[in-house]
C-alpha cells in the first residue's frame, strides 16, 4: 500500500441536543487503501454516522471534528463547499440501505444515471446515455434498454438497488461507501449485489467501505473489518482471522448467532461490559 486513499484520525461526531451532548462517534481512526473495509456494529454503535461524516452528510445538529480526515490528500474538513460537491458523487459515492428512498420517484432510472454522470463529467447527452446503458449492463441488468426507461416504482428491490449502484458508480468513483446495501434485500439477491461490488473493487481498484450489522456477511466479503461499539473501534482485524478475535464483544457477536453448522442451545448471549465503552 503506497499512499492511503482515505485517512481518518480521531473522528468524532457529536449531536448537541436539548438534553445534552451525545457523542455518536468517539475517536475513530483508520486508513483505507484500495481494498474492502467492513465496519460492523449493532444499532447505535456509530457505524452509519462514521460513513456519513466522511461524506459530510452528518445531519444537523451534528458536529464533526477530526484530527485528520483526508481523501487522496485532500483535507475534507477544510475543503470548500465546491470541492466537496465535486468529490461527493464524483470521486466518492455512497449507496444507502433502501433504494426506495434514494431514487427520485418521478424520474426514469436512465435519466437519473445520466444526470449523475453529467453533474461530474463534461459529456454530451449521447455519450452520457451510452455510459448509463453500459453501467446498467455492468450491474447485470438483464435488459438495460428496458430498465433505462422504467421508473423506480416499476422495478423490484434488487433491481432498484442495482440501479442505485449503477448511478453511484457511473462517475467511476475511487471510494464507495455502502451503508447496509443489502439488508433490505433477499439473500439470493444480495449475493448478486455483493458479487457486482466485488468485481468493481477488483477490476477498478476502487476502495470500498462496507457498513453492516451482519458480521457473517462482512467477514466473508471484506478484507479487513473494524468492529465498532458505542462510538469506538474496539477491534480491527483481518476478515479471515475473525474467528480468532480477541475482544470479548467481537467474540460475543460471533457466538450469539445461530448457525446451521452447530446446534448450540441456549445461545450464548452478550454480557455488555461497561468497560468496553471506555
Amino acid at each position: 500500500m503506497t499512499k492511503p486513499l482515505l485517512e481518518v484520525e480521531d473522528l468524532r461526531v457529536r449531536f448537541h441536543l436539548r438534553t445534552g451532548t451525545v457523542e455518536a462517534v468517539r475517536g475513530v481512526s483508520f486508513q483505507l487503501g484500495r481494498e474492502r473495509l467492513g465496519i460492523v456494529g449493532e444499532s447505535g454503535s456509530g457505524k452509519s454516522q462514521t460513513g456519513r461524516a466522511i461524506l459530510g452528510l452528518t445531519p444537523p445538529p451534528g458536529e464533526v471534528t477530526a484530527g485528520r480526515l483526508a481523501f487522496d490528500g485532500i483535507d475534507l474538513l477544510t475543503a470548500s463547499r465546491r470541492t466537496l460537491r465535486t468529490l461527493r458523487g464524483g470521486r466518492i459515492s455512497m449507496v444507502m440501505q433502501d433504494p426506495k428512498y434514494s431514487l427520485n420517484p418521478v424520474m426514469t432510472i436512465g435519466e437519473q444515471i445520466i444526470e449523475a454522470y453529467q453533474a461530474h463529467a463534461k459529456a454530451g447527452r449521447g455519450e452520457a446515455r451510452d455510459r448509463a446503458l453500459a453501467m446498467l449492463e455492468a450491474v447485470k441488468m438483464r435488459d438495460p434498454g428496458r430498465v433505462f426507461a422504467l421508473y423506480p416504482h416499476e422495478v423490484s428491490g434488487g433491481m432498484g438497488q442495482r440501479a442505485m449502484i449503477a448511478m453511484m458508480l457511473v462517475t467511476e468513483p475511487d471510494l464507495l461507501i455502502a451503508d447496509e446495501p443489502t439488508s433490505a434485500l433477499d439473500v439470493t439477491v444480495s449475493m448478486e449485489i455483493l458479487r457486482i461490488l466485488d468485481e468493481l473493487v477488483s477490476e477498478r481498484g476502487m476502495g470500498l467501505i462496507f457498513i453492516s450489522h451482519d458480521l457473517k456477511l462482512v467477514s466473508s466479503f471484506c478484507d479487513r473489518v473494524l468492529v465498532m461499539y458505542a462510538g469506538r473501534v474496539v477491534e480491527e482485524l483481518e476478515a479471515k482471522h475473525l474467528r480468532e478475535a480477541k475482544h470479548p464483544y467481537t467474540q460475543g457477536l460471533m457466538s450469539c448467532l445461530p448457525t446451521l453448522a452447530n446446534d448450540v442451545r441456549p445461545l450464548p448471549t452478550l454480557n455488555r461490559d461497561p468497560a468496553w465503552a471506555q
Partner: protein
Amino acid sequence: MLDIQNLHVVFGTGRLRVEAVKNVSFHVAAGESYGLVGESGSGKSTVLRAICGLAPISDGRVSVDGREVTTPRGKDFYRTVQMVFQDPYASLHPRHTVDRILSEPLAIHGEKDAEARILQALREVGLGSSFRFRYPHQLSGGQRQRIAIARALILRPKVLLLDEPTSALDASVQAEILNLLDELRRKMGLTYILVSHDLAVVAHLCERLLVMRHGEAIEETSAAALRTSQASNSYTQSLIQASQGYSRAAPDSTSIAV
C-alpha cells in the same frame, strides 16, 4: 394441533387478482415447532395471517385442535392461537403503557385477577415489575419484543404464530429472544409456527420446516437435514448456500431470477 389442507389465499379480483398462497398443506403436531421459510413474496407470512384471520382463506381447510376454524374467528380461537409480529416498534400501541397493553386481552376475555397475571407475564418474559408502567418509547427493541411475547402468552394459548420475531433486532438481542422462545416452549408446551427468511434461525427453533417460493410449497424438510445440507431441491440448496455468507467461488450458484 394445526392442520392445513390445500390452502389458497387470493387478494383482489379481476385484473388486480393476486394469488398469494397456492395450494399449501402441512400438519403440525402439538408441542412441535414448525418453520415457514422463503424470500419476500413467497407467501410465508400470508399463510400465518390466513391462519389467524388477518387474511382470507379463499379455498382449503385450516383446522386448529381438530376443529375447522370459522370466519370470523370466535373468542375461543383467540384463546388458543396468538401471534407475535415482526416489528416490535409497530406492534405496540404508542400511547398505551405496558400495563394497558397487557391488561387489554384480559379485559376482552373477562379474566379476573389481572394484577397478578400481568406481573406473572412480565416475569415469564424476563422483565421485572418496574417495566409495568412504561410507555413503548421508553423500551429498547428487545424489551418491546418481550412485551409483545408477554401479551401473546397472557391468555395461555396453545399455539403461537411467530412472524419474523427477531429480524428487526440486533444479533445479540436476537439470541436472547430465541433463548426465551425456546425456554417458553419447553415450559408451557407450546406449539410454534415460525416464519423467517433466516435459515439458521428456523433451524435453531424448529424441528420441521416448509420452504416456500412464489406462494407455493417447494419442499418440506427437517432442521437436521438443513444442518447437513441435505436438500433435494436446488432452491433450498441455494438458500442454504447463501445463508453461509458470501463466497467468492462458485459464481453461478446464486443466479436466481429476481
